[in-house]
């Protein structure tokens, strides 16, 4: 089996078989990670650059760890204090790095479509680690792995994605993945944070009522309120957001149903999730992080075997 794409730009471009292959390979690597010797030689002599034009802690560390476990050579680049501050274009930066014989690019960027732009202009394989408000495909894959471990599969699972859907690349990638794999998806949040055409474009249900949504779902994937993206008036205050859309222990007890709580991190405690929910037994937030490394190993491994030059 092999992938239908040369890069991982988004879940949008993937087939069901691609997704299944990524997930199965990730399960294999997850098993590897339980061994006393966690390092495998799969990507020996492959050089990967982690290009982070936006801040990230967890995703960057997760990729880096995945690369090290696969024995790849890695270099890290962050936008601040780099050539970007001297006005260099993305293409120049990447071409300079590639001329030092780098094989793969992992990139996070604030502009939607930036990795697609790069893919048109450079020969290396590209892994999208989040682009603007578009996609975050490895997050969707690790979320899917986590859901399927907990629920025994994805088909027919009812997943609620709650919060800032409008600015969330996690939401878009999750929606693509879950709907392709037969799960049912409802997005829930204030109307100002939900794209107006989401129902007809993506085939999901829309709810503005948190309580009803929690009663419906098996899994609640709660998104971070992206304070750094609020360049417009989209809700009045974090306090009011918490009142209407924050998930509390009490609410979970009232719905009398043991739903799974997920969050891509970092959590704004007391805004979208109260601490006693985030840290409860229903939460699989730390398992998501653990699965992240296995998923990213699978992605890098499969794409490098897809691109023989890499």
């Amino acid at each position, binding site marked *: 089996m092999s992938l239908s794409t040369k890069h991982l730009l988004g879940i949008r471009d993937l087939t069901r078989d691609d997704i299944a292959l990524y997930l199965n390979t990730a399960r294999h690597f997850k098993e590897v990670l339980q061994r006393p010797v966690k390092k495998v030689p799969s990507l020996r002599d492959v050089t990967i650059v982690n290009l982070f034009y936006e801040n990230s802690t967890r995703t960057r560390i997760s990729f880096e760890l995945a690369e090290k476990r696969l024995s790849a050579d890695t270099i890290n680049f962050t936008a601040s204090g780099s050539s970007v501050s001297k006005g260099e274009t*993305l*293409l120049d930066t990447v071409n300079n790095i590639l001329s030092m014989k780098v094989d793969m690019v992992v990139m996070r960027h604030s*502009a*939607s*479509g930036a990795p*697609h732009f790069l893919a048109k202009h450079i020969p290396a394989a590209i892994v999208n680690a989040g682009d*603007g408000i578009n*996609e975050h495909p490895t997050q969707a894959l690790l979320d899917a792995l986590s859901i399927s471990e907990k629920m025994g599969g994805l088909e027919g699972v009812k997943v609620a994605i709650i919060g800032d859907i409008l600015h969330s690349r996690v939401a878009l990638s999750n929606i693509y993945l879950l709907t392709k794999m037969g799960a049912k998806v409802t997005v829930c949040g204030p109307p100002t944070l939900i794209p107006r055409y989401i129902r007809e474009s*993506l085939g999901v249900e829309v709810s503005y009522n948190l309580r009803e949504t929690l009663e419906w779902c098996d899994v609640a994937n709660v998104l971070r309120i992206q304070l750094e993206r609020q*360049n417009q008036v989209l809700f009045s205050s974090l306090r009011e957001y918490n009142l209407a859309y924050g998930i509390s222990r009490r609410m979970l007890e009232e719905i009398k149903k043991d739903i799974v709580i997920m969050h891509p991190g970092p959590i704004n405690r007391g805004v979208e999730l109260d601490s006693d929910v985030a840290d409860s037994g229903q939460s699989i937030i730390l398992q998501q992080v653990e699965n992240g490394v296995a998923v990213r190993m699978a992605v890098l491994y499969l794409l490098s075997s897809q691109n023989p030059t890499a």
Partner: protein
Amino acid sequence: MKILVKQAKIVDPSSPFNGQTVPVFIENGIIRQIGNDAVSADQVIDLPGLHLSPGWTDLFAQFGDPGLEYKETIESGAAAAAAGGFTDVVVIPNTKPVVHNKAAVEYLVQKSRSLPVNVHPMGAVTREAEGRELAEMYDMRASGAIVFGDGLHPIQSAGLLVKALQYIKAFDGLLIQVPEDRSINPHGLMNEGIVSTRLGLPGKPVLAEELIVARDIELAAYAGSRLHFTGISAGVSLELIRKARAKGNTLISCSVTPAHLFFSDEDLQEYDTNLKVNPPFRTPADRKALQQAITDGTIDTIASHHLPHEYDSKVVEFEYAKSGMTSLETVYAVLRTALPGVSQEKWVELLSVNPAKLIGLPAKTIREGEPASLTLFQPDVQWTVGTASLRSRSRNTPFLGRTLTGKVAGIIHKNQVVLNQA
């Protein structure tokens, strides 16, 4: 200079030769004889399937002089216009400095005097085109600004716009406005809809256009002054204009760009920065409504929205790419290719007759004794858009490499002949 156009079909509703295929003889810039090719000429133009119409006029193009010469100079812009069949071009005031006073207008008029194309400055309505204080429009008018508008920065304040409309009424001025409310999703990068949602790109809703069209129709009616919407992109805007006309409002006119008749938001799947334009390409249904409005007469003119940009400004992330495309040279071919069923008479009405009338240019007609202001074109010739043939300084067009139907052969204007290579 004596020029003989050996055989050409005349497309000019005001000419007694309209519809006839005849020779046309031009001497020292004047049409001397129609129907006789037994003349001696310095230059003979003999091209297959040649059509001849009164010279075309574009109402919305950007040249970069002064300040943005790396995008387009007056000379390269005029050459692009001539190659596209335009004898007259209105250039928008968004240069550095802005064309907002007499000196800036006179600079353009002087600098373009000897060119084969008439360059007509659009005077800014407000100082620096910032939408705050009125610019000296009487003075600019007297110096040669024939229309007014803030170009790429549509006027947002209703109070200011109504005063501007009243102000220019004194000389029957025309105000040109791109219909866009900038307070609505100001960070939108493409049409808000199914495609933008799927692509994860911030959307700009039709609402932003609709509101300004609805509002400005009322402002023009109140002021009793003429207003032209350029670059209409959505079906709802056309409905509003039709309704206003049905109620007797004759002050409103509108134009569409060729690209909006050709592309829709579905063409942005690959984040092609050459398709980033403002107003954005809307849905296929909107495109269809625009196409229908060409034939039913709702749309008065074609506007090129020629916005040349340097190479580097488009080889970047979609969000950072500049909006607009270089377009003067492909206007006719794009129209012909998008709407092959539309008659040549209709295109001449939209490219020549109507825009000239709107901005008050003297009527052009193909008759003996009249000045020769002519566009030569071949409706059925196919050609491939290539960088080598483009006269614009910029190459930011999505049509590069595409084969289009309908070719402009050139212009005859101001006693000069500018021909494209066959």
